[in-house]
């Protein structure tokens, strides 16, 4: 019997040890380093004072927040009907849509952004569409515009939203919809009052995931938006790899991480109130 009591812990130990070493230590160490004074090792808030006193960094943080909210809203609004169609479609339609969603998901963000850069450049197909100036396109096409960043980012984020919402949408019983229809509600009313409310937990967790991914992306904003549209994740990258100012980059990471945690906590609360 002693064997079987030790068995689960022996199974768990390697994974827990690897995460403690390769995940917990670096993340906690980095967060702590944001308040360590360079000489003497005392506690200091100077990195945060510098961060909150700088218009450049506050502007980057504001852009991060604003674009992430827009991207999250667009991704969820598109993903919800797509997930609904997938959950109610015949099996081959479902598989086809699944492939369309998964193939980009499994393609490196660098490669997908590359495609957008070609499309959005001055000679790209997207830049010659009529009315594209309304989105702010100039002599560089959509490159260097926030609209361009949003278009490219939503394509990156959409698969995560669709797959998360699909999981919950598939478990909403079709009998409930039938009951609602038989009791006289039409198709749209049933969607609005039965399907959407029952899928809210999935929509909420999809939104959380997309927001967290969105606010910490810097490759797409950098390649499409360029240096004149800095986002917080981008300034963290530059300050830590080019500037080698790790404590200051750590302070920016604390701000970013705090934002993500706030959103997750708010979503969890929302989910509880709903039940």
């Amino acid at each position, binding site marked *: 019997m002693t064997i079987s009591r030790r068995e689960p812990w022996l199974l*768990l130990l*390697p994974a827990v040890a690897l995460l403690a070493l390769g995940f917990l*230590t670096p993340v906690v160490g980095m967060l702590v380093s944001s308040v360590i004074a360079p000489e003497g090792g005392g506690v200091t808030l100077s990195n945060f004072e510098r961060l909150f006193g700088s218009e450049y960094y506050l502007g980057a943080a504001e852009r991060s927040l604003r674009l992430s909210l827009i991207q999250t809203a667009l991704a969820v609004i*598109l993903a919800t009907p797509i997930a609904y169609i997938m959950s109610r479609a015949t099996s081959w339609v479902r598989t086809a849509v699944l492939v369309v969603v998964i193939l980009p998901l499994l393609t490196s963000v660098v490669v*997908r*952004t590359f495609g957008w850069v070609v499309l959005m450049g001055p000679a790209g197909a997207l830049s010659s569409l009529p009315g594209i100036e309304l989105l702010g396109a100039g002599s560089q096409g959509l490159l260097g515009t926030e609209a361009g960043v949003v278009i490219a980012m939503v*394509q990156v984020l959409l698969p995560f939203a669709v797959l998360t919402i699909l999981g919950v949408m598939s478990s909403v019983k079709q009998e409930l919809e039938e009951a609602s229809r038989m009791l006289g509600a039409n*198709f749209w009313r049933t969607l609005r009052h039965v399907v959407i409310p029952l899928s809210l937990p999935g929509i909420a967790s999809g939104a959380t995931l997309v927001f967290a991914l969105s606010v910490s992306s810097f490759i797409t904003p950098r390649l499409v938006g360029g240096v004149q549209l800095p986002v917080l994740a981008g300034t963290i*990258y530059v300050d*830590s790899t080019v500037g080698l100012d790790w404590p200051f980059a750590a302070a920016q990471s604390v701000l970013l991480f705090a934002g993500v945690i706030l959103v997750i906590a708010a979503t969890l609360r929302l989910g509880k109130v709903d039940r």
Partner: protein
Amino acid sequence: MVKSVPLVAKAAAVVLLAFLALYMLVPIIVVAGASLSESRFLAFPPTGLSLEWYVVALTSDVYLGPLQTSLLIAVVAAVIAATLGTAAALAVTRFPLPFSGAIQSFLLSPLIVPTIIMGIGTLTLVSVIGQGPDLWVLVVVHAVLGIPYVMRTVTGVMARSDRFTEEAARTLGAGTWSRYRFVVLPMARPGIVAGAFFAFNISFDDAVIALFLRTPQLETLPIAIYGRLEFSTDPSVAAVSTLMVLITVVTMIALEKAIGLGKAFV
């Protein structure tokens, strides 16, 4: 009787799916198209049709070295993640454990911590207490990223399996080795395969951690592509990007043959 879906809703669904296919696939099609161009410059639609940029990409050290590095890291990270993640999942699904919820949350937490934070944390750590990043540091972080996916797929499969099969094997005298070899691991197999598939692709596609940990000796394929994209270049970068997509397609087909795509994703 189910009342029918109104025609306008059906039409809207068709339009939405058509838009989805266009939106999701267009960037990939553009890259693949540009790689076939005869011209020396990146363009879409391509001018002329040739495979010469594939020859250029596959014969130059610029991409060949990073391709080998990427494949090596992704395979090793996927094997580590699949092994450790499966073991942990088998522990939390088959035994009543104290703090089981907390342990599972901890093992899944790399999913919600932004990768950029893991990137800068790891870079700082290995630079302060070690000699800076090397290949094995990247393997460890990629394995950490893969473990939650393996945990999720294996716990999913085990939750739907029959718990008493193992009990029966034990009663009939099967030792620890035989129980795992002939009962538990075969039951978990679809979850292990799907988890390993995710872990491989996450490592192979990762650009964030790899950018933070890049050194002149440590460059993965996405980083090599990113580096070329910052300057405008010839279509060989499109050719090598298309090869990356093709490798992903091959792993997707392998997954479909092994357990079916639908099972792995929903």
